């Protein structure tokens, strides 16, 4: 049995499989399909889906809902992420589990509403003040829109952090054939909750304290200001330092848990193609065709864009002297590859005209 499914529908199925109970969003192409499906699905399952008056309200409602114990998700596109910016910081600061889907379209500004792009890759990484780590995943197929969204919920709970799912107009709105059995049930463990004591813990820095939900035990304090473990505003340098180092270490010290990447490495290959998202389709095909033509080639598809899976990238780059990075932007993730590549030549294949990158263009760059 198979299904004819698009990426927005697969994101919704993944969220429901992961136990999403709250959704708030504002209409925007190409993410509206998620909002509309959630409006049909969630209330009937005892959850809540609401259309906010704008993107700021939508993500704000999600953060409030998450503090009652709800598993929350919101979805938008680049212009909406711009408006989410300050609340992304709030979710980081208050350590709120939240899944944010960014169905990328061509930017900047209104850009191309129905046009594909991958221009938000660095934006989601650095999209709020302070520069603290975030987690961002990028499915490379419609099926992965299902599995990766569910994984995003798991990581949001595990790390008490906002987690991005980056898709794009083409993944989101193109129907593709999926094996029905591959949409297998997913079990995301229930939220790790505590009913008494301080709602935060900053030491040891890399540990994540269980969350405290409103109405489920002692009174719970939450603040977007610099705070101590009881969420009281503090100006004590030692307490501030502990908080800020914790926000970094709770993610940076667990990189192994965060890596999702498909390595397809061939011994003797001189060229590695590193890709992500919709562009991975053509990249995989280019590697296959090069091999069919008798040329050794390696490929690495990165699903966990942030934090950068440095170990997986280093391992994939060992032995090659050329790295090809196809992207629907002018070289955003290439920056991360370049800083790890040493003497290797890093070549971008870039397109910002709203069309997908073809297999031939990647093959040309592979030599």
């Amino acid at each position: 049995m198979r299904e004819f499914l698009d990426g927005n529908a697969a994101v919704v199925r993944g969220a429901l499989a992961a136990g999403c109970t709250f959704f708030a969003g504002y209409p925007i192409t190409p993410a509206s399909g998620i909002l509309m499906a959630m409006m049909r699905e969630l209330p009937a399952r005892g959850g809540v889906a609401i259309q906010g008056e704008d993107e700021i309200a939508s993500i704000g409602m999600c953060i409030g809902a998450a503090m009652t114990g709800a598993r929350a998700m919101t979805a938008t596109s680049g212009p909406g992420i711009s408006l989410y910016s300050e609340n992304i910081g709030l979710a980081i600061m208050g350590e709120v589990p939240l899944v944010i889907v960014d169905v990328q379209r061509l930017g900047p500004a209104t850009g191309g509403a129905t046009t594909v792009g991958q221009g938000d890759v660095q934006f989601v990484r650095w999209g709020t003040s302070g520069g603290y780590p975030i987690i961002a995943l990028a499915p490379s197929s419609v099926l992965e829109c299902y599995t990766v969204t569910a994984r995003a919920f798991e990581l949001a709970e595990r790390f008490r952090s906002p987690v991005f799912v980056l898709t794009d107009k083409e993944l989101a709105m193109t129907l593709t054939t999926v094996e029905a059995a591959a949409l297998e049930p997913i079990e995301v463990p229930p939220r790790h909750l505590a009913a008494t004591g301080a709602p935060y813990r900053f030491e040891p820095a890399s540990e994540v304290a269980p969350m405290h939900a409103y109405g489920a035990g002692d009174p719970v304090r939450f603040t977007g200001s610099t705070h101590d473990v009881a969420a009281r505003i503090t100006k004590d340098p030692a307490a501030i330092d502990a908080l800020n180092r914790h926000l970094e270490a709770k993610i940076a010290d667990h990189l192994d848990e965060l890596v999702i990447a498909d390595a397809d490495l061939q011994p003797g290959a001189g060229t590695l193609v590193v890709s992500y998202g919709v562009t991975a389709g053509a990249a995989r095909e280019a590697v296959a065709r090069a091999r069919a033509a008798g040329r050794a080639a390696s490929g690495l598809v990165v699903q966990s864009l942030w934090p950068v899976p440095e170990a997986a990238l280093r391992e994939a780059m060992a032995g090659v002297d050329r790295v090809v990075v196809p992207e629907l932007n002018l070289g955003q993730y290439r920056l991360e590859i370049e800083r790890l590549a040493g003497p290797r030549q890093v070549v971008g294949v870039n397109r910002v005209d709203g069309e997908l990158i073809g297999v031939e263009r990647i093959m040309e760059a592979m030599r």
Partner: protein
Amino acid sequence: MSSPAPGAPETLRNAIPYPFCPGCGHGSVLDRLNEALVRLGRAPERTVIVSDIGCSGLSDQYFTTSAFHGLHGRSVTYATGVKLADPSLEVIVVMGDGGTGIGGTHLLNAARRNVGITVVVMNNLNFGMTGGQHSTTTPEGAVTATTPGGNLEHPLDICATVGVNGAAYAYRGTQFDPELAERLVEAIETPGFALLDVWELCTAHYVKANRLSRRGMEELMEELNLRPGVLFRRDVAEYATAYRRAHGTDAPPPPPAAIPVEFAARLDRPRAIVVAGSAGGRVRSAARLVGEAAIRSGLWAVQRDDYPVTVQTGYSLAELVLSPSPQALLPVPAPDVLVVLSTDGLRRAGPMLASMTAEGTVVTVPGLAELATDARVVVLDPGRVAKGELALTLLAATVARLDLLPIDALRAAAAAGPFSGANLAAVAAGAVIGAVGT
């Protein structure tokens, strides 16, 4: 007025003294809020004080309740999320006139929805914490740090704004109102959205520059025609409760039916089929049926649609790639088969015609302009056919003519979906036309 529940705490204040400037109204308003919550017997852990930014944003720290201190102007959105997710919680927003201005849209939309939260606006007519700048409620003529020559802007009528947009309760008064605690109790007990616009003296800034007093505040209200008292009171349903009532009996939509693989197609390599017609002609749903039929035939289908942002006008185009093996999302340089249904479709698909080679096939209807292409052109006459049936009829004819997949698979797909009667008729008609075309 309700009496406190047995065993309820005697105060929801903690032992920390207020940090507010001498003469500032914030402390006395918070004391009244505490009084109201105690009278109502609210449990601290089930009460969430959502504070905004500015001096009023300090408020939550002096209570033993749950608290949410968020971003400037967004307090109402967090409160809405809390209340929607758990309607049993008591949610109180404490914000200033600054937050009211920057978060105005949230305030009026929460009022419109009648989310069951209580908003206390500590309205001291200027931004206190940042140095006495003018706010949306600063009276005309008032001197502030940013209106040294007198404010030229008309002050916002907060109560009217939420009131005309449906708020269940709106009250205006001052920090000195002896009945403020009573009003807070009323507001908290109101099922829908309730707002209290409480005017206060900002002794650090506004009062210094404008010589305002208790009496002066009352005169100013009169002068500005912003009358005190309970100004709106409506019996309306609380949103989070109404939401659950409205959806309580909903059944989740049925999961999409999985598609069985029950036929076999002879296709030995990927083929791209583009169908180009007019919006409103069910072009995309016809293509989807062919995609589903391909899946029934063991093929892997990818369908990408292209249409203008408006509906029922202009072109509608669907691109289907059918492949004997799993396929990724790839750009399609030139279609193998182009089905042109109308001049709208022809206009959009024109550049594709030019890119097609003699290997390709263009299927079209009689009467369209001369097609400039190297591809083989097949003109099929569907006869008199409704606009909504043309796409599927021609696609069925194309499937039959080019043997893209078994026509029985298309019949099975049509039978399984919506509008099966009309779709089966279109497939049957297309199969005949495909067999006899020129």
